[in-house]
């Protein structure tokens, strides 16, 4: 067996996706280890979001292999099945349930049975509420618990969505631009949070904010035109000539 595959939480090999002739992913290969924190950078259109779409089942790859946890082929599964495996996602544009309260948003995300029949029973158990309170404390939305999610600010929605990810307790977190709309202090806080949950969970972060990526202090992958341009420590990648050409600028 390929050790890359068996030791990985996420294994992408030669994945290609094209939309009407435009190749969004081009022979992309990427391996994320268990408990690893990984930052993904790259210019717009590099395929970062498409890569997440492929992993979470939103987009089917034209060809290539996508394997989760060393053994599960993701290409044949739909979003719900993939989420149930333990892959959580935060979207680039914060997507929360505007019509429901902050607490209910977290309750919806909370790890537990997802089937329609089971949902007819067992709502708001004491254990569930306690777990939600814990998450609320982490993301500092305790005061806003009973407010409608739609009335939150952009930054608060980001926190709520991160909170939903935590409540989901997935093995792999895909976090798309978590700090957009946050203050510097909040950005630092987010970096601390993500570093702390890595280890127990694997975390893949897509970000443009280079100083934020730097604080994460982890392996960085730079994507360009649908495939990996450079990979390694932040210093190594940011010193790469081609990365500078296509992304960072001189």
């Amino acid at each position, binding site marked *: 067996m390929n050790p890359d595959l068996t030791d990985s939480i996420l294994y992408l090999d030669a994945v290609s996706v094209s*939309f009407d002739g435009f190749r969004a992913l081009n022979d992309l290969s990427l391996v994320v280890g268990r408990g690893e924190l990984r930052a993904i950078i790259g210019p717009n259109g590099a395929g970062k979001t498409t890569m997440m*779409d492929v992993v979470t089942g939103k987009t089917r790859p034209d060809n290539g292999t996508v394997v989760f946890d060393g053994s599960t082929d993701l290409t044949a599964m739909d979003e719900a099945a993939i989420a149930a495996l333990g892959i959580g996602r935060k979207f680039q544009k914060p997507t929360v349930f505007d019509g429901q309260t902050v607490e209910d948003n977290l309750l919806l995300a909370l790890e537990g049975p997802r089937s329609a029949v089971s949902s007819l029973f067992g709502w708001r158990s004491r254990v569930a509420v306690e777990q939600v309170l814990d998450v609320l404390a982490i993301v500092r939305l305790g005061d806003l618990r009973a407010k409608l999610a739609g009335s939150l600010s952009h930054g608060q929605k980001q926190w709520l969505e991160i909170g939903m990810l935590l409540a989901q307790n997935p093995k792999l977190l895909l976090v798309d631009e978590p700090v957009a709309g946050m203050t510097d202090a909040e950005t630092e806080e987010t970096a601390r949070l993500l570093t702390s949950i890595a280890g127990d969970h694997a975390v893949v972060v897509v970000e443009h904010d280079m100083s934020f990526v730097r604080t994460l202090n982890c392996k960085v992958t730079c994507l360009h035109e649908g495939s990996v341009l450079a990979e390694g420590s932040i210093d190594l990648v940011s010193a790469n000539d081609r990365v500078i050409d296509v992304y960072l600028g001189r």
Partner: protein
Amino acid sequence: MMRAILLILGLLSCSLLSPLPVRADDSAALLSRLATDNYGDIESGITALASSGLAGSEIILNALADGRLSYRPSDKALFIKDASGAWMEAATNATPASVPMGLKPVKVNNRVRRALEAALGSMTLMSPDPLKRIAAADAVFKSRDANTLAALDAVISKEADATVKRHFEDARAAVLMLKSDAPEADRVAAANTLGARGDQDSLALLSSVTEANAPANVVASASLAAKGIERRLALLSTAQNAWYGLSLGSVLLLAAIGLAITFGVMGIINMAHGEMVMLGAYTTFVVQEFIRAKAPSLFDWSLPIAIPLAFCVSGLVGLLIERLIIRHLYGRPLETLLATWGVSLVLQQAVRSIFGANNREVGAPSYMTGVWDLGGFQITYGRLWIIVFSLAVFLALLVVMKGTSLGLRMRAVIQNRRMAAAMGIRTPVIDALTFALGSGVAGIAGVALSQIDNVSPNLGQSYIIDSFLVVVFGGVGNLWGTLLGALSLGLANKFLEPLAGAVLGKIVLLAIIILFIQRRPRGLFALKGRAVES
């Protein structure tokens, strides 16, 4: 001058057609053969008379058929009673000096009657009028009376008109086909002739040739010819179905084409779209009423006049709907659906209040009526014009969308509203104009549909579901998809109809489309990629 030529031609053809110049004493002998009460003699006399070409023999035979022929046993002279009851000498056509006495009617039994009918049939084969000759040949084709064979052979050799000659030959083939004592070679040739004729009657005749009534050789060639006809007929019915399908498709295209703009391109669910079509149809009605009252001579121009008017009426109503209702509901498609449904109810009731609930008569101009027959393949001019018209409207719309600055701005607003606004395009104006354009095109469709459908307040209702299905099937936001969707739905409908019946065919088609939409929710020409999701 003309007359003289015609006369000469007539005389020529008469002399050509009379087989033999009959001498006077021969004619007396011929006629006397009927003056008997022996049926066998009468029968042979009829056949002899019919093939003699004697002038007036047709009158004599007709009189016999009507029971108006009598003979004087003393001198075997024949007399005909005319409609007024007066007698006339058959040989001379002269009225006798005195009322003839002691006449006995020439009697007729079934055998004689058959011989008589065949004889009369073959007599008209010699008529100077080509149409009559064709009719006679077709009558023989149907009756297949072996007695006419001699007459047919005679006329075929003399016939100059190729069309008439072909009918004669077909008739002869029909007679020979089932004539068991005819030479085998003749019957094989007959099968080929019938095969070449290739209609339903020939097929029935050829199929009736079996081992029981023909030698194997003849049966083989008959079945070969029958197969050929079946192929031809199948091809013809396929072509006819395709034509009907094309015609239905063009109607669907007309009904859906405005929707391809308002729904397909703008994404507005306009349930009152059918009523825009209906308004166009009523505009046509009003224009025609006006023309009938003021300038009847312009009637043929009523449709060309109605087209721009219908565009304006429906376009204006569309503009009002957009400004007053739809613009408040952008981004809320389900609410738009409900509100425009309300509009459709109001428009229907308004038309019902003004014009009454009954169907209104919209006339067809002269160029819309008539049939064009292409060897069994029939094309009605009305349908032909509607197909041409729908394609013309489609192309015009394509040109407007792709080739004008208005079209460019429309596409810009649709693709990226905020960017377009930032570039100085007044998006509300473009929205309103685009919607008005789609509605106006629906009105134009109404002009065409008034020609083939009942003009009633419910006209639009019958098209709305079909139109939506066409647009969704073809792929939203793609005019070519709408064209293909309309034509394929039209064809599918017409090819399903003979298999499943009209209503069941429609149900089957609906079921297929429902399944199709579920497999490919975004139609035949789906846009892919992330842009679709947002």
